[in-house]
């Protein structure tokens, strides 16, 4: 317990150094811009637009739902899962989005560090490896649903960033 504050400081140090170098305002702007960019990217993928939002797809419960993400850590956790899913899809359409999610998570950590929030790097789904069979059998469904839900989640995050989310 004694080394708790020190370890916390050491953990935050790389991000704090970033915060010093980059104005937090720029980080916030870049975060919002990047979210918009990802949303637009998803919109530009033609086959995602044709999917009906009213139709529910069963069997893809591992994809984060439409529950609101209220905190930065929850955002990071959600994005980590999406990144994990998209990376596993090995689709040309989503590789760039996966990279963008990587940047977005870094930005969120930077924002969290600016608020002195300890934001350990989220690991994604631990049981993801067991879902290999599901992914192989439903690549299209997974991609469409994942991108659709991601788009919604990002738009939700965009709105919450203006409200200064908590840790």
């Amino acid at each position, binding site marked *: 317990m004694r080394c708790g504050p020190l370890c916390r400081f050491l953990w935050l140090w790389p991000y704090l150094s970033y915060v010093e170098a*980059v104005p937090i305002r720029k980080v916030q702007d870049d975060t919002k811009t990047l979210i918009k960019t990802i949303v*637009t990217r998803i919109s530009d993928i033609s086959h995602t637009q044709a999917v009906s939002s009213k139709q529910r797809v069963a069997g893809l419960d591992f994809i984060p739902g439409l529950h609101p993400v209220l905190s930065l850590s929850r955002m990071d956790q959600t994005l980590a899962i999406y990144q994990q899913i998209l990376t596993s899809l090995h689709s040309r359409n989503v590789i760039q989005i996966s990279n963008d999610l990587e940047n977005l998570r*870094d930005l969120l950590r930077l924002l969290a560090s600016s608020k002195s929030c300890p934001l350990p790097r989220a690991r994604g789904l631990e049981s993801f490896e067991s879902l290999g069979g599901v992914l192989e059998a439903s690549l299209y469904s997974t991609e469409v649903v994942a991108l659709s839900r991601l788009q919604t989640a990002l738009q939700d995050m965009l709105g919450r960033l203006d409200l200064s989310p908590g840790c």
Partner: protein
Amino acid sequence: MTCQKFCVALLHWEFIYLTTALNLAYPITPWRFKLSCMPPNTTYDFLLPTGISKNTSNLNEHYEAVVKAKLNLSTTYFSNLSSKTTFYCCFWSKEDKNCSVHADNIDGKDFVSTVNSLVFQQIGANWNIQCWMKEDLKLFICYMESLFKNPFKTYDLKVHLLYVLPEVLEESPPVPQKSSFQIVQCNCSVHDSCECHVPVPTAKLNHTLLLYLKIKSGGINFQSPLMSVQPINVVKPDPPLDLHMEITDAGHLRISWSSPTLVPFQLQYQVKYSENSSINMRKADEIVSTTSLLIDSVLPGSSYEVQVRGKRLDGPGIWGDWSTPLIFTTQDVVYFPPKILTSVGSNVSFHCIYKSENKIVSSKKIVWWLNLAEKIPPRQYAVVGDRVSKVTFPHLNATKPRGKFTYDAVYCCNQQECHHRYAELYVIDVNINISCETDGYLTKMTCRWSANAIQSLMGSTLQLRYHRSSLYCSDVPSIHPMSEPKDCHLQRDGFYECIFQPIFLLSGYTMWIKINHSLGSLDSPPTCVVPDSVVKPLPPSSVKAEITVEIGLLKISWEKPVFPENNLKFQIRYGLNGKEVQWKMYEVYEAKSKSASVLVPDLCAVYAVQVRCRRLDGLGYWSNWSSPAYTVVMDIKVPTRGPEFWRIINEDTTKKERNVTLLWKPLMKNDSLCSVRKYVVKHHTSRNGTWSEDVGNHTKSTFLWTEQAHSVTVLAVNSIGASFVNFNLTLSWLMSKVNSVQSLSAYPLNSSCVLLSWTLLPSDYSLMYFVTEWKILNEDSEVKWLRIPPSVKKYYIHDHFIPIEKYQFSLYPVFMEGVGKPKIINSFPQDDIEKHQHDAGLYVIVPIIISSSILLLGTLLISHQRMKKLFWEDVPNPKNCSWAQGLNFQKPETFEHLFIKHTESVIFGPLLLEPETISEDISVDTSWKNKDEMVPATMVSVLLTTPDLEKGSVCTHDQHSSANFSELESTVIAREDENRRQPSVRYATLLGSSKSSEIDDEQGLINSSVSKCFSSKDSQPKGSFSNSSWEIETQAFFILSDQHPNIISPHLPFSEGLDELLKLEGNFPEENNGERSVYYLGVTAIKKRETGVFLTDQSQVLCPFPAHCLFTDIRILQDSCSHLVENNFNLETSGQKTFVSYMPQFQICSTQTQKIMENKMCDLTV
């Protein structure tokens, strides 16, 4: 007791036997050992070393000795011997020369005895054996070679190795059955050496390998004792690799190598080197555990030879083979390092040891030069010990290639002497600029860089390496140890292009170029790029352009590109559409705006518009221009004004009506904005009120003007409406008589411009403007008109005027009340045009005229000479010419008759050829000088007559027929009395000759005649010829007085000379009117030629005469021509006048004489 002892001994023996049978395999040593075999029946007791008992009672001790010495022994039998001959073989080595021998007793039991190896060396067969494990740990090798000179035949040598590798991991495993041994045949060479290979599994490296050899040589079989070894303990490394030597900065020799890669354990190395120099020779052998060895004090001009081998550092092992010897030779001057590759701005140092004449130069005496051209300042030197000098180059600049040399040569010199060897310094500018650009879809970043800066470094390879940070770039980018290479492709433009796709938009890509070269590697300064900050967006889409109706602005609209999501600014460029559009720029900084309007001067033109965008914060690049959009010409507003119009009135005087035709010019786009659908003429009269007439697109309209005043207005109508601002014209009978223009002038400036100028009379009417009309006069050409503002007084009319045509210009003052009376002029001055044209042509025509005149004059002169020769050269003396006798040459008709007669006498032949004989007598030489000019003689033909030949005469009062003078003379006469001017014959004087007896009389006659013609003060011609001039056969001379008495004209034909004379007469100064300058001289014998003077007729003044010219010649002529009579010269001249001789040639001379005469006369001009 004895039995008891025997039993004890027996037990011991059995124990020994079992021991030797179970575990007496010879342990293979890391070094070489020997196998020696000896035939049976060999007495070796005496050979046993002293102190070793042959009694079996000593077996126990001997066994222990054998175990201790790790010697083993067995029996070997010669199989080819019928008898069971036993060969005793044993192993021994340098460390232990005792060899234990097993011998069979009768019972077939072995017993052990210890024998000195020397016994075997002398009488047995001996082999050297060495066994080891290869470095790859897969192959066990035993090598054997024959030792000494074997007493047995060694042909047909066959060796087999039998081995067994027990599964049990024990140091001393039990000896397995013979059947379990595997056999391999060894490869033997002709040199009695064999090599046996035993594969060993990696897993059994630590197991004990049991083996023995079977040797068959010369029909005899040998079998070695059993050997045992753990392969891992006899590993023999390969020789070290990459052995090389270099001189360190401190002047030491560093020997370095790399260890064999397959060895699983650490090695120790043995380095064997020798130094050979003129100063020192040394050898050394050192064992080190590292892969380098430092030898201090390297010497210039030395040779170093080095070999290295390796061995397992910890535990047993076998020394590997020596590496190939490496020889390193140092020169008399040693640079270390000999070559340096570095980058611009860095600091490097060279060291040097200099040996001169077998002596090391003191480092304090060493100086450094660069490229043998520049001495390096001593402040850059440093002394490192007594022998080593050091030079440092700070802040290096890039090496400039000199021809094929791409390095700087650094010389270490002993004072003034530099060794020819040098160090090489390569300084490369590695400031390679890497520029990146992210595409408009934010998925790809393309980086470009040029390698031009390092092309001079041959043999180098370039590689872009990068490191990606998670977010953004650090303030000072640095080369990260963890970097990745990126493939780049050379483009046609010389740039390398590397593509990152996909990208991390907000990550920092720190990139640099790594330059690899044999001399080392260099890194360019790193550059960090965030892809998001180098975006080149896609150009805006859906660009449209239009001119807004009613507003009249150029409106441009567009759609922003999808990416980036950042705020954008836009740049618009627009211009009139054409081949080369002159663009104008307009910027829009409102990120959300999608349109902009700009003011353009021409609303009725087609504009081309393009838009591009860029991030509002300035990051990234401008996008490409969008595809151009074009405006469409359409009506924007009502026409700005109605057309200018004028009227043409066709008056019918009988009906008192006038047909008025209105003319107007069609509106241009700028005024019609942008088209005219129709024109409407509005009329207004006091009686009929106002009405309109639609004339469509026509540009004229005719109506009948019947009332006193008739006002008309022409409106232009387009799709928007009718023009608001229009011109009015009132036609008024009363106003048409109002004269307002006082004068009007037209000045043509050139064929395309006429200046119209006018003056006005004071008027009470308000002048609106003028209208000027012009047309070609006397032609039914189109009347052109122009509206002129009322304030100007002159106006330039630009039109295509024809200079040769006359124009009519009219100027109408137009008042509010109506059109006033015009001022009309019919033409602009035609002469002026011609004058201007002549002026222009003057520069061309005058030179032509002058050239033609010169050519004509030359032609005349040539013709004159020709004519002179034809006519006058050999004029015969009439006296001697039968056809001339009886002719009176004083009368003009005589001349005419002369030629007529002559012509008649010659019935054939051209006319011009015949007068030659005639002309001899009527040629007169004359000469004069008019002031400073020498006027050449000219000829006046006697044939030049006029109808008034008899009437006209120079001496009009004289009854004698005499020749009329030239025009000049006529002019002179005309000045005095016009009635006297009767020019007919252009010459007047002939000097005749008379008989010698009548000389005096005739002289007086001549004088009288001359006096009559020239001495008169009223400027009348004073001289004329007497009728008897030919009869007296006397040469007569005209001597013309001149202001230069010493110059006398050359030979002058008579008639023309007279003409010229008369011309001169007319030009003589007036003040000497009383003393004419032309005189006729009678030629008599020159009695006073000795005096050299002449007495003039009136002044009685003796004037000097150029006797050396004239009289001498005359005398010569006299001598040569018997007819030439000397005459006294009566000179009639004034005191101021000088003489001009006028010499006739009417003499009978031969052609030769005549020529002499001419030549001499020419001298008169001198």
